[in-house]
């Protein structure tokens, strides 16, 4: 499978939230059985870490941290009736970050010996010393207590790595068959399984051992009309999750039926890939004959599998403090939500908008116990009743906004890369009153219901955005009337959230997520989830995306 096949399969070209490449997927492949072997024990890791920390201190570091990482990933790829590839990767090595004379230095190595780690620590210190030339603002670290020797593990019921590869391939092939039987011409499917074994130690006195698990089953079903040359696709409505293989055990309690007339099903913490694939095959074929949307203003009713992406782009990123301060100006951009903007107490959205950052959320792919600079993770409010109340911060930023502690938002995609600020799970709280999607739609006179994430784009300060979706349905006088195509909506972040009329209740709440939130230079990816219930936004500008070439 080449890179373009991979991008096409995962919809990365359309659904990655800034794809900077495919780090972590092509490097070192290893046989599946090895993925079950235990890594080095914590006694050995502590000894190695201490060798690095001592070398760093001897080289002049006022602070240092060491991350001994082992990433075990397995990807099963299939298309139609065949297994395309089974890829097992292992990556093992150490990243060392040091603070010397107020400057950061970082170096990594795949040679995991005490001597190599000491040498790598000295190299990191040399880099920090060289950069004294270009330091204007010495780093100020928020104080952090040492936790001693602690551990954390994703609370999974069954590791996906313990499931035989054949069983996983057979499940994907069965999903493919379901989609093909239902009308798809082609289908690609994949199961991504991630296990990050992270050992962190710092001169603060923390020795943190974490075992993180993530899973993502996905597919892309395509229907082709050879006569007209038209083709249409529908992607899986699954979410990447911080769960074990139990996510693939269907449960009626974890299904949420979409509004009447849409034939859509959403999933909470259990996913029925066979049922979703069958619906996808049917819906991809149906897309070949849908009515093209008439552009104009519509009230939008957005399902959580769609809205999560909008939350990510228009709230998650602009409230990252490193963007606000200008650290991402050369690549991922800055933010309209500057410190001055916030000081004016301007509304971010309507009073119905309450958004929370949460690194502890069950089932979310961004959930961990500690971040990559030794900070215990937590939950905190970002937007309360439509007003921005806080940002997302790391240790060397807290003082800039007059705070004394990090929010635990510092992560690296692997031991090879330096840690920096990444997004927490950012979610819209559900409405307090009981309301189903059907009840919400019953009050819409002229609108569109959108399910699933599609094309997306937002400017570098997070004002202007455009989003597509997987499935679109016209709403007229309180009822779903017909499916639509060529739909995208454009809005300004503040106007859009200002037009929020409220959400359905907790019973409709679901997660959207990604493994591939991109940012930074060198670019790194990160995993993050976004929860919400079905939510209504009034009078949003909808464009028609049909073209002739």
């Amino acid at each position: 499978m080449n890179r373009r096949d991979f991008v096409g399969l995962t919809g990365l070209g359309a659904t990655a939230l800034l794809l900077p490449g495919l780090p972590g997927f092509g490097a070192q492949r290893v046989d599946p059985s090895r993925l079950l072997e235990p890594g080095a024990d914590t006694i050995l890791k502590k000894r190695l870490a201490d060798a690095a920390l001592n070398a760093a201190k001897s080289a002049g570091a006022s602070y240092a941290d060491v991350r001994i990482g082992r990433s075990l990933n397995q990807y099963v790829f299939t298309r139609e009736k065949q297994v395309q590839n089974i890829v097992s990767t292992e990556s093992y090595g150490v990243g060392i970050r040091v603070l010397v004379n107020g400057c950061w230095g970082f170096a990594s190595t795949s040679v995991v010996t005490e001597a190599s780690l000491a040498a790598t620590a000295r190299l990191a210190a040399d880099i920090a010393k060289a950069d004294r030339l270009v330091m204007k603002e010495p780093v100020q670290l928020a104080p952090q207590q040492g936790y001693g020797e602690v551990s954390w593990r994703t609370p999974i019921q069954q590791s996906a790595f313990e499931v035989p590869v054949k069983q996983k391939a057979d499940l994907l092939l069965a999903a493919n068959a379901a989609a093909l039987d239902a009308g798809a011409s082609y289908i690609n499917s994949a199961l991504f399984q991630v296990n990050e074994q992270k050992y962190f130690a710092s001169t603060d006195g923390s020795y943190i051992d974490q075992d993180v698990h993530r899973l993502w089953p996905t597919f892309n079903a395509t229907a082709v009309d050879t006569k007209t040359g038209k083709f249409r696709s529908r992607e899986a409505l699954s979410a990447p999750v911080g769960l074990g293989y139990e996510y693939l055990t269907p449960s009626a309690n974890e299904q949420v039926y979409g509004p009447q007339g849409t034939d859509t099903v959403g999933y909470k913490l259990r996913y029925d890939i066979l049922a979703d694939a069958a619906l996808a095959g049917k819906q991809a074929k149906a897309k070949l004959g849908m009515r093209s949307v008439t552009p104009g203003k519509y009230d939008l009713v957005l399902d959580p599998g769609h809205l999560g992406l909008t939350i990510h782009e228009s709230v998650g990123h602009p409230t990252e403090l490193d963007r606000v301060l200008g650290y991402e100006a050369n690549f991922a951009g800055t933010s309209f939500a500057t410190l001055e903007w916030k000081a004016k107490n301007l509304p971010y959205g309507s009073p119905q908008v309450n958004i929370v950052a949460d690194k502890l959320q069950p089932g979310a792919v961004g959930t961990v116990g500690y971040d990559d600079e030794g900070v215990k993770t937590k939950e905190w409010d970002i937007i309360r009743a439509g007003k921005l109340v806080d940002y997302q911060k790391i240790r060397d930023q807290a003082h800039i906004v007059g705070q004394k502690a990090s929010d635990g938002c510092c992560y690296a995609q692997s031991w090879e890369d330096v840690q920096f600020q990444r997004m927490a799970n950012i979610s819209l709280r559900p409405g307090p009153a009981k309301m189903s999607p059907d009840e919400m739609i019953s009050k819409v006179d002229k609108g569109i219901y959108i399910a699933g994430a599609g094309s997306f784009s937002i400017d570098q300060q997070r004002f202007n955005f455009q989003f597509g979706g997987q499935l679109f349905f016209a709403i007229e006088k309180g009822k779903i009337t017909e499916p639509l195509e060529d739909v995208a909506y454009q809005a300004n972040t503040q106007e859009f959230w200002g037009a929020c009329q409220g959400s359905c209740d907790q019973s409709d709440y679901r997660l959207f997520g990604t493994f591939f939130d991109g940012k930074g230079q060198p670019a790194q990816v990160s995993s993050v989830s976004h929860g919400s219930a079905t939510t209504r936004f009034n009078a949003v500008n909808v464009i028609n995306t049909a073209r002739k070439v």
Partner: protein
Amino acid sequence: MAILSQDEAQALLQKVLTYSTADECAVSLNGRTTGNIRYARNSVSTAGAQDTISLAVESRFGKRAGIATCNEFDEATLRRCVQRAEEIAHLAPESPEYVPLLGPQTYLSPPSAVTTLLTPATRAQAAADSMTLCAAKNLASAGFLDGGVRFQALRNSKGLAAYQQSTNTDFSVTVRTADGRGSGYAIADVTDPAKLNTKVLTQRAADKAIGSVNAKAIEPGKYTVILEPAALMAGDDLSLLGGLLGGLDARSADEGRSFMTKKGGGNRKGEKLFDERVNIYSDPLNAEVPGNAFDNEGLPTQRLSWVEKGIVKNLYYSRFWAEKNKVAPTAYPSGFVMSGGTQSTAELIKGTAKGILVTRLWYIREVDPQTLLYTGLTRDGTFYIENGAIKFPIKNMRFNESPIIMLNNVEAIGRPVRLAGCLVPPLKIRDFTFTSLSDAI
């Protein structure tokens, strides 16, 4: 350790092959030594170095294949790695898309790698040159410098042997005015760090930042645009030209799920899809953008025309799809060259009665794969042109446009420059579609 010589690499691979009992076995080594410095707010933010090497072993028994890797190189580990690859191969299903390993190949010799590389000190100095300039003018710089050396070596039981080193240095900088009302950008990549002048590039970005203050809003609609190379090709994100070229895949076209699909079946290879002045090719021997001599399977790259006088001359054929269609397979190139004229961007501006200069596009995403419709926004320096001169800065805008339509609306093609490992000219395009305004600066 991360960079092995050709002799060292092949000796190691040859030793690994002797441990194999498979019908076919392919082994490869990949290594890199790189370093970087990142700065913002006129101060360094992060800096680092990476040093990695890994071995991959693919073992095949009939149509069954297994892959294992390791990153330690003692004999016991190497033997275990081969053994594990063979165990997986025995367990794997037969692949209906099996093609045998390649035998010995003959490769071109792209211009050799530069041996002088950036060091922590020279990276810091290059960044200092950029930051000092901005600090003196009360401007804020944010930049990134990254570079190093990589190698890849292949060997298999059919007698194939390949080795190549490459070097690269990438630099980009965004300069913003202190009040946040202006922003400018410049980018360059070189194979030889000596050719990089961060001061000159930063000055260019600074000029754009200062010039973009007080941007006016104009109505979205269809405009003549001059797209600078950075607006056409990007290394870190999707890009208009990169997306188009990445879509020239024969299999997806033949299967009916590509913009290259022909109505009624088959693909559109040989059709004139673009303006006849559009010529795009790849050439591993190009002195300015030397390319990979081989792909990951060891298939040799060669000079290949993709678009000639607006006609799609070649599509990418994997070895399986080539065999099925009885055509030659295609080694996917590492870079492209879009031929151009002799005019610089400044000269293109002089010849423009009314139009928009676009420095950079941002967050480009595919809206419709059928028509290759993309959306995205201008960024870091957008200016209105009138009577051959830049008249005033304008607010950024969102576009919805297909590169297929764009390359049919070519007014002029400028002189190509190196960017993201490619040679890309500035393009003057008529009727480029902007659909909304953005307040972003």
